[in-house]
């Protein structure tokens, strides 16, 4: 350990005690893309003892210009698993857990709970608000990074009960309102810089040195090299809204449909669920649940009856296909807390018989 971290140990602000704190820290990085790659690389090389990486995507050729952990032989590999292998080579002494699926409403709280803090390297607003709400509920710092062309934003939310992301932007923008990197393009070094700022904030929080960017948003323009820090206040109304819900707030935007996909293996028997069968009445097998509504997708007109229903609703059909389309329709009409079942009726029947 001594020689690997020598330069860091030399700093009086860190020393052996600080390096030990780094080794005992755990950080979850959501998204192993443009922001996640550089952040992960430095967190691993600095000796952060436990890293979590979550990303459902695979490495594409267009990623290689900025996602610096990967090379051409990694194409089509899952990013979380691939990043873990690379980082293991860089620093075999740390623990790395890779999650090769998306962070969603069913798994976010239990995954985030395991870590001291979260670095947000996600590329969509539904994931970002999900991270934010979970971090708020679990009192974990969320280290945010945002990108637009030649610009970046950084902030630390929920740090020592400080402001949250919703204090800055209470609700997600409408679908398509704010384009992401894959739509607008990005200077390849921009995520590198912002990701490193995020890793730096994580190290500062671990070491309790300096002042983390809490209650402030740093906006960097790489063309003018202007760095401006905007200060903002905590909005108790927004904080209370999430805390009262005890769960991340349901998202009405759908920039990431995966958020609303539920698999039987993620369901607990304790949950009270409202099942919605969108198949035609003649389709077999028919299912029985304490709370079941049968409305064939073809007959859908008004969804008014669901409007005041805040129970967890799961749509299902024969294969998961129609239920996915039905879910889009529900989201369009602003129906909250609904998901679609990845599996079909046959599998659901088996699952219900084993309850």
């Amino acid at each position, binding site marked *: 350990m001594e020689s690997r971290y020598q330069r860091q140990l030399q700093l009086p602000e860190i020393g052996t005690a600080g390096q030990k704190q780094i080794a005992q820290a755990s950080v979850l990085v959501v*998204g192993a*893309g*443009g*922001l996640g790659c550089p952040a992960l690389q430095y967190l691993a090389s600095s000796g952060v003892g436990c890293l979590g990486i979550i990303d459902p995507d695979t490495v594409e050729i267009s990623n290689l210009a900025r996602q610096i952990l990967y090379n051409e032989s990694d194409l089509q590999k899952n990013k979380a698993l691939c990043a873990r292998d690379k980082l293991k080579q860089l620093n075999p002494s740390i623990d790395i857990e890779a999650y090769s699926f998306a962070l969603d409403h069913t798994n976010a709280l239990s995954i985030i709970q395991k870590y001291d803090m979260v670095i*947000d*390297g*996600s*590329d*969509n*607003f539904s994931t*970002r608000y999900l991270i934010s709400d979970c971090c708020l509920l679990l009192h974990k710092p969320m280290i945010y*990074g*945002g*990108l*637009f062309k030649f*610009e*970046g*934003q950084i902030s630390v939310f929920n740090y020592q009960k400080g402001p949250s992301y919703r204090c*800055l*932007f209470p*609700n997600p*923008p*409408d679908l398509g*309102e*704010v*384009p*992401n*990197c*894959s739509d607008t393009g*990005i200077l390849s070094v921009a*995520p590198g810089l912002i990701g490193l700022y995020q890793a730096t904030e994580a190290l500062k929080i671990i070491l309790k040195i300096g002042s983390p960017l809490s209650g402030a*948003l740093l*906006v960097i323009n790489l063309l003018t090299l202007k760095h*401006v*820090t*905007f*200060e*903002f*206040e905590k909005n108790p109304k927004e904080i209370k809204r999430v805390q009262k819900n005890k769960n991340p707030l349901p998202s009405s935007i759908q920039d990431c449909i995966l958020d609303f996909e539920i698999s039987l293996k993620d369901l607990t028997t304790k949950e009270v669920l409202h099942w919605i069968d969108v198949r035609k009445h003649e389709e077999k097998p028919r299912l029985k649940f304490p709370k079941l509504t049968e409305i064939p997708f073809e007959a859908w007109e008004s969804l008014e009856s669901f409007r005041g229903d805040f129970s967890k609703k799961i749509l299902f059909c024969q294969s998961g296909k129609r239920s996915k389309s039905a879910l889009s329709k529900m989201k369009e009409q602003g129906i909250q807390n609904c998901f679609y079942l990845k599996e079909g009726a046959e599998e659901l029947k088996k699952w219900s018989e084993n309850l």
Partner: protein
Amino acid sequence: MTELVGKQEEEITLQSKDVKNLKEFLFQKYPMIKNHSFQIAQNNQILGEQTKLDTAEVDLFPPFSGG
């Protein structure tokens, strides 16, 4: 924001100097930004609706996506 309104900065004159008034002015002149979320800051402080504007320069900025 810059792309929506087609300019980096602009000088305007307001009748009543508060955030609400500024927003009304902007929405009237640039209706395309009406359905977009953004924040307004002066002296590097992000402002609430009722805040009085006491400086000559304000910044507007939207949420950013990531990647």
